[in-house]
């Protein structure tokens, strides 16, 4: 677990926009992950993803790291932004786009 937590810390530091999700960019594996990908594509930004279905250890660790029980999870500039519902609301208000401009 500790190693995974360190890995996550490194990942969110190295990657300004990173989405922990189920599935891949090309094949999101749940409806909420699909929505999150669509929102980020709509914002026209480069972003990384991590597929938690590849590793149960990662799936548990990211929930522990963020102290957040659900997926997907978006990190921008090392800060936890939220899940799909938050992303959608921030996107509709224009706040997500503003946040992503600061990357």
């Amino acid at each position, binding site marked *: 677990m500790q190693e995974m937590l360190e890995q996550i810390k490194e990942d969110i530091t190295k990657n300004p926009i990173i989405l922990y999700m189920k599935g891949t960019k090309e094949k999101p594996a749940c409806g909420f992950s699909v929505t999150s990908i669509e929102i980020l594509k709509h914002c026209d930004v480069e972003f990384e993803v991590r597929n938690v279905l590849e590793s149960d250890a990662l799936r548990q660790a990211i929930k522990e790291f963020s*102290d*957040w*029980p*659900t997926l997907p999870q978006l990190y921008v500039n090392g800060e*936890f932004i*939220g899940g*799909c519902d*938050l992303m959608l*609301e921030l996107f509709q208000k224009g706040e997500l786009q503003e946040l992503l401009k600061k990357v």
Partner: protein
Amino acid sequence: MNQFLSIKEQIIKCIDDAEVHISDPRNDGKHLEAIVISKQFEGAPLIKQHRMVMSALKEQFKSSLHALILKTYTPLEWQQCKKC
């Protein structure tokens, strides 16, 4: 319905003035939607509002709850929302 009640109670335990509406659009008891209205959300960024609710439901997420689509409102926002 017992599950809804326990989720409602748990949220109110932690956010004592909360008005809570829960639905189960997929009818599976695992992917729920919740609307939570509270004066305690005033002035708090959305992420903080969501964290208040999510941390109230830690135990539920360890057992039957798999996903929760959350919408939080202050009482004023809720009034304005209802008018739309």
